[in-house]
């Protein structure tokens, strides 16, 4: 912007474009936008974590593990371990020890579950690194040890992905609506400012001011007010975000489950863009509004 009105404010805009209401309303929009962005990022982060943990984990239960395998020599357990050891996409195969199985049963059967003589299946954990569900592995296991159960987290991971996607879509819709409302607020405020300072604008225009000069003056003021509102709204949102982070900490993994609540690096990186976006919306909306209004002058 040229230094056209450096020494003064010939349009008297300091008396126009409500300097309290506009930042307040834009601040409210920024507050909502901050929550939407945080929700979007948190959903993505939690989904990524849950999908990573859950989708790759395989649990194989082999009833009657010491019985003879249906195919080949040895027990069913040995046959399953052998098959898993050579299967593509299977990693970190580990049979649980009797103590570990007893520990799993303890909540239901008590500390001496092992002494009850119940037929307890062998349990093997593994990681699935292949693409898609491990249906072929399950079929192969059923052939060598009929009745073997293979549980994978892929179904849950798919559901979490769908939920995350819908949450992110909602957040994006909220952001678009908030940006639209902010633009509408600024457009209304700018038109009110034009109506209030119509006489001055017409005089300056008749003296040869360029449309760009006049629109620039309004845009500068709208940018400043919207930017202030954006900063205020984002700052007010911070304690709320920290409180929400504290509520979500138990679901966010062991790193976040202890100590003070904190926000993700991605959120810290995105938050400064909210006031910047508010300021840009202010600038663009004021430019469009004023230039359109000026086109109506002779």
């Amino acid at each position: 912007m040229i230094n056209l009105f450096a020494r003064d404010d010939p349009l008297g805009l300091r008396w126009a474009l409500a300097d309290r209401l506009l930042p307040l309303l834009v601040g409210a929009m920024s507050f909502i936008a901050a929550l939407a962005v945080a929700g979007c990022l948190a959903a993505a982060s939690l989904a990524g974590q849950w999908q990573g943990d859950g989708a790759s984990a395989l649990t194989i239960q082999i009833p009657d593990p010491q019985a003879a395998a249906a195919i080949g020599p040895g027990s069913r357990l040995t046959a399953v371990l052998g098959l898993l050891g050579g299967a593509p996409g299977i990693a970190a195969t580990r049979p649980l020890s009797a103590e570990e199985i007893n520990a799993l049963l303890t909540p239901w059967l008590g500390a001496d579950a092992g002494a009850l003589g119940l037929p307890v299946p062998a349990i093997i954990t593994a990681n699935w690194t292949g693409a898609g569900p491990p249906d072929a592995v399950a079929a192969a296991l059923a052939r060598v040890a009929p009745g073997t159960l293979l549980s994978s987290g892929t179904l849950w991971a798919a559901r979490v992905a769908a939920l995350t996607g819908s949450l992110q879509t909602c957040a994006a819709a909220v952001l678009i609506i908030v940006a639209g409302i902010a633009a509408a607020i600024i457009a209304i405020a700018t038109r009110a400012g034009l109506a209030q300072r119509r006489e001055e604008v017409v005089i300056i225009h008749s003296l040869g001011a360029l449309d760009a000069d006049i629109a620039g003056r309004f845009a500068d003021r709208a940018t400043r007010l919207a930017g202030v509102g954006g900063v205020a709204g984002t700052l007010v949102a911070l304690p709320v975000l920290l409180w929400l982070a504290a509520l979500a900490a138990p679901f966010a993994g062991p790193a976040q489950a202890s100590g003070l609540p904190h926000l993700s690096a991605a959120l810290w990186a995105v938050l400064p863009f909210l006031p910047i976006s508010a300021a840009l919306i202010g600038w663009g909306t004021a430019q469009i509004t004023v230039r359109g209004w000026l086109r109506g002058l002779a």
Partner: protein
Amino acid sequence: MVSFDGVWLSYGNLARPDSAAADSVLSDVSFEIQDGGFRWLTGPSGAGKTSLLRLIYLGGRPSRGRVELLGLDPERLRARERAMLRRRIGVVYQDFRLLGHLSAYENVALPMRLAHRPEAKIKADATEILHWVGLGAKLDSLPGALSGGEQQRIAIARAVVGRPKLLVADEPTGNLDDEQAERLMMLITALNRLGTTVVIGTHNLGLVARHPAPRFELAAGRLTRHD
């Protein structure tokens, strides 16, 4: 050159011939003023003087006909070019149109600021012209604190400070006493001698008689005299 060719100005529907004449503020006005010319524009109240002057200072667009200002057809100009043309036209409005929150000095400096003149030149020229119109002691006064005559002198100073190619004045002496009016006419005459084309709308026939020059006369929107 300022040229009007078959200019109509109407707030009605010129496509309907039966309503056009009745609604017209200006009807079939044609004239030419060569560069450096001087014209009085006279006529009774409501004759259309102010409307005609508005068309000359780009305050409106004709409903029909062609206007040429300083060799340019405003209708063919883009917004930026129209703004540049406005900067070459000084206007003294009947209602002054000063910016009430700016001092006398800042009001006069404004056209030069718009034209990106150096600040030192703005200060020298604005101060000089305000002294010339007798307001040297009121540079910092707001228009609201000044009399009607003083406000009119600020408006005149603002119109001439940029040494415009075309000066359009609508009743520029309406609030001035005889002495101030004569000083203003000296200023305008000097500008005209330096090459500024001047058009002054007035109903003060005494002033016209004291400063003989070609005259247009309007009556009911029609040019009835064209020297």
